[in-house]
């Protein structure tokens, strides 16, 4: 084999290899590979069964209830399509609020209630002063009313 042929062969193999890599990676990202599962995924049976896993989503507005002991809480995690009720006993992170993101670890009972052993807050990437946030909220509400009308 001439050295030019060798070079061509090497380049050909490299290109083929890169192609395979790209295909495999794309395939992987089409499948699920996640730190947590969304309620929709759980509903679709994609989440693990009979063992601990994480769910993530927003805390549904108005769903947060505290029991008398002050530690046990109930809330509902939603991704706007599906919802999962959660119970948790322990201290909640400061950022845990209705309407905000959360990631809860625990297991799903047969009654469809998710018993969490750890609840984390997942915040978004927005940083602004409260006034601005308030103004933004107002604006959004105004827009929403405009749309409704």
């Amino acid at each position, binding site marked *: 084999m001439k050295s030019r042929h*060798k070079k061509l062969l090497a380049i050909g193999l490299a290109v083929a290899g890169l192609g*395979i890599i790209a295909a495999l990676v794309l395939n992987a990202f089409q499948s699920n590979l996640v730190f947590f599962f969304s309620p929709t995924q759980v509903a679709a049976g994609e989440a693990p069964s009979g063992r601990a896993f994480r769910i993530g989503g927003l805390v549904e507005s108005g769903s947060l209830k505290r029991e008398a002991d002050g530690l046990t809480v109930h809330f509902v995690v939603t991704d706007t399509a599906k919802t999962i009720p959660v119970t948790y006993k322990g201290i909640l992170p400061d950022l845990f609020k209705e309407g905000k993101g959360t990631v809860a670890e625990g297991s799903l009972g047969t009654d469809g209630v998710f018993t969490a052993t750890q609840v984390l807050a997942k915040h978004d990437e927005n940083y602004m002063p409260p006034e601005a946030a308030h103004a933004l909220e107002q604006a959004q509400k105004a827009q929403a009313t405009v749309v409704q009308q």
Partner: protein
Amino acid sequence: MLGFLLTVIRRDLLLAARRRGDWLTAQFFFVMVVSLFPLGIGPEPELLKRIAPGVVWVAATLASLLSLSRLFADDHRDGSLEQMLLSPEPAVLLALGKAIAHWLIYGIPLLLVAPVLGIQFALPAEAIGVLVLSLAIGTPILSLLGAVGAALTLGLRGGGVLLTLLILPLYVPALIFGAGAVDAMLAGTGVEANLSLLGAFFMLSLLVAPWVSAAALRVSME
């Protein structure tokens, strides 16, 4: 070219056959590390099943790493590595051949032993299947990357540990995806994503590692 590659592989296989004790010991190490865990952690079956993928994968990693530290060291000490680098054939093939031989000698037996260990940890049959499959894709990665590390640390004192330090960070993705695949199987979620990424990582190592090890070998000879 192919002849050279085959000679490199045949030579290492013959040497391994002459030193069967070495080879057996490496396999034994793997079995032993895995078996230590039930001793250290306690015999709770559910717990053991949960940690089985991670433990088997970590043990396989460590077992391969230990044998990898000698991949070029013996040839370096007795001067035959020098002679091989003076061959007219390209050093990439040498590095590739050495990695392939290492996998044949130390990787394949791991695959054969793994099912037994899986049973020891009460893994269900499908999970054992995924475990073996993930190891089959994952252990060659270690042989390839490890060859880079072995070449870089050639002749340094404490090379074995240094090798580990250099290679483990690079190897972490394989560990995560490999153990992740088995875990996903146990959890009843899809294993495909993990295995695809593992495969992609394998292809990447196959493309890159031999060149880097060859360069590293030349550097270490200076």
